């Protein structure tokens, strides 16, 4: 065992740094490392923890996300509207009244229902598509780079372009309607009425499946060649190999992608806004559009903040429960 001659100052010293509870990054004390004659190797290198590496990211997120979040929470307790915006700190304090109004007399609950179900369906349906694309482009073939880049296009197009594009295509008498009509299928309105919900889902799937593709792609690269060889030696068919050998490797990225896609879809504002306009038809009155309208068209900023925070809470709780169950954040290696 060699003596670690450390060339540079390390992060926290050997003992536990008393970090405050909560999710602020454990403050690593940058300082000179204490040299030990014989390093005792602990289970997870409690010594030599470069916790200072957490600082830049942590500070940024603290200042730019958490602080405004607190400001938003304060705003949600104020009667903040266009009349009181100018000196917002002096707006009248009304406690939880905004929350009551949000839950009881606004369409918040219905919007949450629409948003959550839409987000779930879109995320779940996108997965097999993205997965299939990854699996299909695993091996080199002529033009693979081009195909991969083309796949990316729906995701790369700005959301409002996608919205305008599909709105133009789905309008009554538009391309989709005429083509279906020529084949004898009359579906009714795509952009209003009950079908609009499904139109939103279809468009969202169209634009976000490359996201899945990208995320899982990275994961697939970490599969050793030897794994493939072993499966070939065992004579596994493609389906069995896929299911029992490859997919377990991809479990992490897939789960992550599902959750991220779900969260992203819930908060997706631009697409429904451009696709359906404002006021939104009842079937697609999703949460972000509701909060935006309340904030920037009705100018009820306090109410809008309360709505958004309500939805945050209502979504975060089941999310964390799910995460616990799935052990996504435990960090324990399940695979190897």
């Amino acid at each position, binding site marked *: 065992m*060699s*003596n*670690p001659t450390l060339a540079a100052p*390390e*992060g926290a010293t050997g003992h536990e*740094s008393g*970090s405050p*509870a909560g999710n602020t*990054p454990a403050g690593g004390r940058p300082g000179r490392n204490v040299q030990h004659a014989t390093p005792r190797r602990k289970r*997870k290198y*409690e010594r030599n923890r*470069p916790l200072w*590496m*957490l600082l830049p990211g*942590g500070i940024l*997120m603290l200042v*730019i996300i958490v*602080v405004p*979040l607190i*400001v938003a929470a304060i*705003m949600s307790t104020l009667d903040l509207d266009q009349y009181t915006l100018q000196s917002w700190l002096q707006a009248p304090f009304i406690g939880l009244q905004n929350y009551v109004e949000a839950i009881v007399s606004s369409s918040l609950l219905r919007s949450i229902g629409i948003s959550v179900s839409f987000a779930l369906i879109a995320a779940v349906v996108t997965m097999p598509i993205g997965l299939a694309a990854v699996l*299909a482009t*695993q*091996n*080199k073939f002529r033009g693979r*780079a081009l195909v991969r*880049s083309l796949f*990316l296009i*729906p995701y*790369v197009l*700005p959301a*409002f*372009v996608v919205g305008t*594009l*599909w709105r133009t*295509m789905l309008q009554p008498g538009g391309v989709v309607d005429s083509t279906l009509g020529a084949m004898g299928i009359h579906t009714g309105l795509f952009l209003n009425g009950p079908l609009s919900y499904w139109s939103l889902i279809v468009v969202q799937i*169209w634009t976000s499946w490359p996201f899945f593709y*990208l995320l899982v*792609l990275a*994961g697939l*690269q*970490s599969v*050793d*060649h030897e794994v493939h*060889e072993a499966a070939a030696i065992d004579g596994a068919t*493609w389906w069995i190999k*896929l299911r029992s050998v490859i997919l377990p490797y991809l479990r992490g990225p897939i789960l*992550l992608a599902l959750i*991220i896609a779900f969260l*992203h879809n819930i*908060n997706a*504002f631009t697409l429904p806004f451009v696709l359906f306009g404002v006021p939104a038809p009842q079937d697609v009155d999703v949460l*972000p559009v509701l909060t935006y309208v309340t*904030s920037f068209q009705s100018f009820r*900023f306090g109410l*809008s903040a309360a709505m*958004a925070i309500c939805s945050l809470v209502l979504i975060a709780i089941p999310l964390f429960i799910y*995460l616990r169950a799935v052990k996504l*954040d435990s*960090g324990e290696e399940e695979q190897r």
Partner: protein
Amino acid sequence: MTAVKPSSADITRLLPRPLLVAVIVVLLVIVLGPVLYMLFASINSDVAVAGGAFFPTELHLDNYLKVWTTVDLGTGLMNSVIVCVAVAIVCAFLAVATAYVLVRYDFRGRLSFLRGLLGLQSIPGTLMLLPVFVLFSSTASLLGVQIIGTRWAVFITYLTFALPFSTWVMVTYLRGLPKALEEAARIDGASSWRILTRIVVPLSWPGIVVSGIFAFLLGWNDVLFASVLTNPETRTAAVALQVFGATQEGGAIPLYGQMMAASLICAVPVVALYLVFQRYLVGGLTSGGVK
């Protein structure tokens, strides 16, 4: 060993050939169909597009020239590229560093940090707009540092918003990396920084590229924050594009042709960047040094 040695490609192929081809073809059709419509619309007349035509009835190739003057697309693209590339690089690096600590080391509050990262992603943008604006303008009045209107404003905002997700991507990716290489390096006496930069980073290029791309796209597509945080010189392409889509009251048809042309132009840098970085996505782990 079998008599005929299967090629490496055959071994790693995950789907049978016919299925593979079918999947690719179907996906290409789904993707390219609407894109083709966009292409046709960009050279069609606006009135025809509004009327629902698919194939161009007239040829307006000058749309591709007009877009540069209608909205100063050049400045917008330049700003977008500068900000988004910077965000992608810094974000990817910060994400690797943060994820490395989170995955390889234990400390009090680690789980909360991880959960917090995930939770931060469920925050809607519309909630943050006014408070972030308040934050930046207070900095201006209290510290005298003008942020709003400069590229720093959108840079900081996009960087921070992209961090939670990018970090999670790296966390997931790093968990799949075998620790053996790092352990060997530590035995050899390397510092954490050295391990990070010399071993972890080169091995996790696929994850880094993916985080970078997402961070890039977050900034590239954002409209809400860019429209209030920038001024005409620092305007991003996304905001510039808005002019085309704006519905005019009173009978002016939106400039569909130019809008589609401008959108395709804006898509090009990203697709190009992706083409360049593609090779980093492929590669996987090289054995040796461990086994």
